[in-house]
């Protein structure tokens, strides 16, 4: 595919070559989207023209820079499109396949060229010459190595930690009549702005990921012989690129899974009176400072009874266990559970739903399922905008400090205003605005030293995870602030915590993982029972 001569030619002007590769990649990405649209509307001349123009540009650039192999492939498709434009040929399935195959081929070729370009040691004289400056005058945007952005974000994080350490160490900063206090507060404002800007530079829209998924949907639908229409919404929603990177695999898996297992075959759909073409909706939106991505199919839905049988046979639950249907649905996220009758090429390749859930939870997010038999299934992923910072409540339980992610907090009540009741088995519960929920002391749950007695500072925090609520008593709430999140590398398997935050005095406050807290609560009550 890539004669050595091509690479040789490209190496003559590395900067032009890099530009060529990145431009061609962008063209290919847009071609892919256009072709998928074209497949739905084969008569749309403007789409054919747009695809033609992109191939034409790739061809022209490729020949001019000496990447002959790329030029030849692009030229071939250009001719094909010419025939379609002049109505010598109709755009059918074969033509679409041919174009998409060419796109894949070109992508591979570009990857190889890019590798070749970067494998060669940069020559000493590669610094920008006067000519280069002229050529790249007044750029509207520049390309920056993502590692440099990451370093910037990390350094801003260090500055934030330092800022809180200074505030802690210097009480004069709290007195607003001091000049230094005013200066320090300006400094703090600038620093927050710097953090916002540096993080925003790492934010990228989901569009590119969604386009990749559109391709997966098309291929999976062909492989399964199930016609599927993909509806995309919210592709401009932005996320930290690190979060997006971690999302790609789970999304791909969920989409393949929906087509492979969710969507019924044509005969079944006909029998049920459903439209022949299935509909898959991929939708992203902002929600309470998080991003929500939903994947909905109009397929068969999850069968709770079938899941139950399978879970019992796999030993995941006991024969007599009494589980609600939503608890049964969540069992598909357990390791070693697969409802696939046969291991298919598409979604039965070891990467299971358990990996999907684990990846999303590792991001500090969560997966929910909404499903109805014969109506379809929606997987809803909630993830934070970024993993670098977290808005959290700093609190004290006993003599230890913890951080609770602010997004799970529903309300905070004074302990004195709460009426604690003893339920069956001595399990305490509390009623908040007519909703009954379990009550627990955080220091007890975490096995820490308990404060001698409840005092005026004690607060009850109502948290909500997956619609499940709990009232958690803590001994003091310092306030809500943004924390720089650090991973707990060597002890990541510990339940109940998602990371650590460096606090103002240089100490560490563990970040509570709300899902893990509920698991701990369940474990505690099971042990007590």
């Amino acid at each position, binding site marked *: 595919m890539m004669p050595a001569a091509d690479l040789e030619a490209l190496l003559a002007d590395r900067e032009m070559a890099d530009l060529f590769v990145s431009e061609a990649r962008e063209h290919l990405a847009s071609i892919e989207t256009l072709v998928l649209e074209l497949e739905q509307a084969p008569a749309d001349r403007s789409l054919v023209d747009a695809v033609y123009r992109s191939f034409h540009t790739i061809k022209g650039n490729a020949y001019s820079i000496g990447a002959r192999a790329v030029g030849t492939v692009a030229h071939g498709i250009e001719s094909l499109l010419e025939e379609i434009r002049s109505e010598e040929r109709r755009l059918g399935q074969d033509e679409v396949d041919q174009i998409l195959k060419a796109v894949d081929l070109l992508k591979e070729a570009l990857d190889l060229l890019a590798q070749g370009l970067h494998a060669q040691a940069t020559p000493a004289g590669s610094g920008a010459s006067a000519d280069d400056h002229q050529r790249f005058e007044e750029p509207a945007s520049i390309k920056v190595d993502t590692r440099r952005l990451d370093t910037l974000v990390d350094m801003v*994080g*260090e500055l934030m*930690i330092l800022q809180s350490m200074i505030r802690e160490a210097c009480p004069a900063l709290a007195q607003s009549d001091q000049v230094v206090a005013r200066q320090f507060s300006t400094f703090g404002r600038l620093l927050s702005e710097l953090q916002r800007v540096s993080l925003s530079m790492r934010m990228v829209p989901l569009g590119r990921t969604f386009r990749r998924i559109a391709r997966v949907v098309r291929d999976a639908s062909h492989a399964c012989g199930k016609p599927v229409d993909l509806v995309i919404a919210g592709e401009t929603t932005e996320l930290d690129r690190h979060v997006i990177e971690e999302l790609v695999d789970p999304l791909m898996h969920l989409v393949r899974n929906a087509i492979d297992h969710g969507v019924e075959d044509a005969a079944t759909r006909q029998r049920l009176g459903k439209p022949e073409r299935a509909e898959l909706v991929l939708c992203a939106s902002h929600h309470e400072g998080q991003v929500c991505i939903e994947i909905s199919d109009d397929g068969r839905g999850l069968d709770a009874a079938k899941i139950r049988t399978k879970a019992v046979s796999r030993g995941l639950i006991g024969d007599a266990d009494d589980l609600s249907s939503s608890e049964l649905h969540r069992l598909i996220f357990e390791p070693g559970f697969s409802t696939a009758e046969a291991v298919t090429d598409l979604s039965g390749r070891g990467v299971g739903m358990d990996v999907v859930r684990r990846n999303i939870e590792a991001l500090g997010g969560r997966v929910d399922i909404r499903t109805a038999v014969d109506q379809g299934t929606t997987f809803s992923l909630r993830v934070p905008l970024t993993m670098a910072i977290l808005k959290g409540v700093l609190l004290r339980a006993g003599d*230890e*400090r913890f951080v609770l992610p602010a997004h799970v907090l529903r309300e905070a009540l004074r302990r004195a205003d709460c009426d604690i009741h003893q339920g069956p088995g001595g399990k305490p519960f509390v009623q908040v605005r007519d909703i009954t929920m379990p009550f627990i002391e955080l220091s007890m749950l*975490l*096995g*820490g030293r308990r404060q001698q007695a409840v005092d005026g500072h004690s607060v009850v925090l109502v948290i909500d995870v997956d619609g499940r609520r709990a009232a958690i008593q803590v001994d003091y709430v310092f306030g809500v602030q943004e924390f*720089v999140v*650090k*991973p*707990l*590398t*060597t*002890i990541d*398997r*510990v*339940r*109940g*915590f998602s*990371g*650590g935050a*460096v606090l103002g005095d*240089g*100490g*560490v*406050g*563990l970040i509570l993982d709300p899902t893990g807290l509920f698991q*701990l609560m369940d*474990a505690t009550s*099971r*042990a007590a029972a």
Partner: protein
Amino acid sequence: MMTTSFQANRQGPRSTAAERYVTFLVAGEVYAVPALSVREVIRWVPPARVPHAGPSVKGVINLRGEIVTVLDLRMRLDLPSAEPTERTCIVVVTLQRGAVRHQAGLIVDTALDVTRIADADVQNRSGAAATERHDVTGVARTKSGITMVLDVERLVLDGVGPAVAAEARP
């Protein structure tokens, strides 16, 4: 902060027969870890306890913005526990495994010094009746007396072992 860095040793020429070790005292006995695996030795700071992390994980500390797990060496070595004193130190050891760098802080009573121990002077533990401890790979005679060489890999990777045990709890 009283900080001793051993970073420079990594670049230094390595003697074929002897390796440099960082030595320290735990419950009156001399222990050693290879200097190459030591990131730094810091003065005692109280770690934040990690609930349900198992008995030998003392907690986590902030080491210039990085969170490091601190292991209770006395607990690991089955020695009676002790309150920290002003001589107590944390020896931060690192271990590279593929792309992942593991690290852990070991609580020691007193840091001693950096000593060269010839490979020939280290008796492996099968030959040393005094050591049944798995965490000890060998015993050597040095100027500080009998010195027990600790298995950093085991300490760092197994340091998370109790976390697995915690999962097995009801």
